[in-house]
């Protein structure tokens, strides 16, 4: 008997796109140029941002005529031009809804042009429920062209599965509709946090950020450590970060190293490494275990990055300060029991193309408030 899949509940708010997810994955794989095979405006904002990270994104600019007559010739032309203009060492070709619906075969253009550098083809469109699908598809293709190992592929796949679950449980996919929210006033939250520190309360300072967003989220943890130090309570703070630089794709390792070096230079002591930059869906579990063993009697916790990936088990009795970059993450976090939720608006764009920690608003607020202490 055919078995019906459980009908997935409707989600109405717009969510991250699988096409964009594929683009970011290609960047992590050190792809030099990506050709988006589709309409000129597709994924425009992210295509632009990715250039900050040094990856070129170009489009075949399919128009009405392309939709009707197919875009093979356009793809061949753009591929040839890309090779000539950018002399890339690694090329990506990414599908879009438009080209996939009309049945474009990305591989045909590659066969025709025969570039002498590897080409990662991703037959993706934006119609998948979970944007992680775009990541998996890009990785599958990278695996097929021998760019990543089977072991790394399996590792990534397992992480993505967890990431999808994290979003379903308490994230962007947890409700039919999530109202965006600007979070609590940074000044008020900072005031309360400083009050606790001054009272000599013990606090956990946790960075659990997704990939390059750590460049700014780390600034919050850095600021917390700095202000505690300045107030004479530095030893009450325990720092945990997902900055393992021995795991993940080359870019993620590189970034972990850069952030760690920066932190070290600024006198930040890392007490626990809870995982790598791509391990944010599971690093929370490692943190949870450590907290259970050593710090379950702590008074407060600051969690920046993906706070909703941290299990509530051992922190539910603490006063929680979480910092996110998703306005739609505020309500789920409050519902989980996070007392204070701060949103760093537009964080991601500021973390592209950087190799040092970037100042955050919340971090700046904290520092400003103890300036004269």
């Amino acid at each position: 008997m055919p078995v019906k899949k459980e009908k997935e509940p409707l989600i109405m708010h717009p969510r991250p796109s699988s096409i964009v997810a594929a683009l970011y994955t290609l960047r992590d794989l050190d792809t030099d140029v990506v050709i988006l095979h589709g309409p000129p405006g597709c994924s425009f904002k992210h295509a632009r941002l990715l250039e900050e990270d040094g990856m070129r994104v170009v489009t075949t600019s399919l128009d009405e005529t392309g939709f009707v007559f197919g875009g093979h010739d356009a793809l061949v032309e753009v591929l040839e031009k890309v090779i000539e203009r950018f002399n890339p060492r690694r090329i990506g070709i990414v599908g879009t809804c438009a080209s996939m619906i009309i049945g474009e075969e990305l591989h045909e253009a590659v066969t025709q042009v025969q570039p002498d550098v590897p080409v990662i083809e991703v037959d993706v469109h934006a119609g998948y429920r979970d944007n992680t699908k775009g990541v998996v598809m890009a990785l599958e293709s990278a695996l097929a062209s021998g760019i990543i190992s089977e072991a790394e592929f399996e590792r990534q796949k397992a992480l993505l599965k967890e990431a999808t679950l994290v979003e379903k449980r308490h994230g962007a996919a947890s409700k039919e509709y999530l109202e965006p929210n600007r979070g609590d006033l940074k000044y008020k939250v900072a005031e309360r946090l400083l009050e606790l520190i001054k009272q000599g309360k013990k606090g956990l300072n946790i960075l659990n950020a997704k990939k390059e967003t750590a460049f700014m989220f780390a600034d919050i943890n850095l600021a917390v450590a700095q202000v505690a130090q300045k107030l004479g309570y530095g030893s009450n703070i325990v720092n945990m970060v997902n900055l393992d630089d021995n795991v993940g794709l080359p870019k993620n390792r590189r970034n972990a190293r850069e952030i760690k070096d920066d932190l070290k230079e600024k006198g930040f002591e890392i007490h626990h490494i809870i995982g790598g930059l791509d391990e944010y869906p599971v690093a929370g579990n490692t943190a949870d275990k450590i907290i259970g063993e050593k710090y379950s009697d702590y008074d407060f916790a600051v969690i920046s990055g993906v706070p909703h990936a941290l299990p509530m088990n051992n922190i539910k009795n603490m006063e929680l300060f979480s910092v996110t970059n998703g306005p739609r993450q505020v309500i789920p976090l409050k519902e989980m029991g996070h007392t204070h939720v701060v949103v760093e608006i537009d964080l991601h764009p500021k973390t592209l193309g950087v190799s040092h920690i970037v100042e955050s608003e919340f971090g700046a607020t904290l520092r400003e408030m103890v300036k004269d202490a």
Partner: protein
Amino acid sequence: MPKQIAIYGKGGIGKSSTASNVAAACADEGYRVTIIGCDPKSDSSITLLQGRRIPTIMDLMREGIDIKEEDIVFKGYKGVKCLEIGGPEPGIGCAGRGIIVAISLLKKISRAIEDTDLVIYDVPGDIVCGGFVAPVKKGLVNEAYVLTSGEYMPLYAANNICKGLSRLEMTLNGVICNSRGALNEEKIVSEFAKEVGSQLLAFIPKDVLVQTCERDGYSVIEKAPDSQIAAVYRKLAKSIMGKREGKIPVPLDDSRLRELTRI
């Protein structure tokens, strides 16, 4: 690797009848056969299933079923595996995308297209969009056949198909004449086949038996095994299963095509 064939030709020329009779004849010979209907009207396998209609891949997808091989592969006459891709209702959605989705699904879940000796893709007469060439483009078809009568319009369609095949760099492995009783028909189609760089594999006479068996839900191979036309299908089946090199066809220009139908 199984022989994977597709039969092309003008709408209504007899592709589905030919496909199911060839499938049945090959099954009689002991071959393991799979027939995949790529037409939204899903009429490719009815005559192998005693007139029964099977759920199509698209039906199941629409209902949100977690599709497994056993949900879509149905055993027909002498174990022929029958699959229908199906599609949306006429005038709604995108049937071409349906074929693409179904073909990628098939590649993932079905052994029916691997553990077999012959796979026949029965495609609709009009390759209206990219989706309908997905079986060829996704590398699931390695031999193409063209079915035509000796009349001008079916030959015109056949010639267009040759154009399409040469564009896809796909070989043509034979031309089949399904007679509509035109004058000098066998000669015309045979000449056409030669000129596009192929050969005439069979001349199937027009026989009302095909239609009466079809009406009852059978192939002539099953319902009228001793008929003359059953023998023709058997011979064609043998010829298809035999080894033969295909060639990328060279389409004719229209004036030559017109000339040809005047002989």
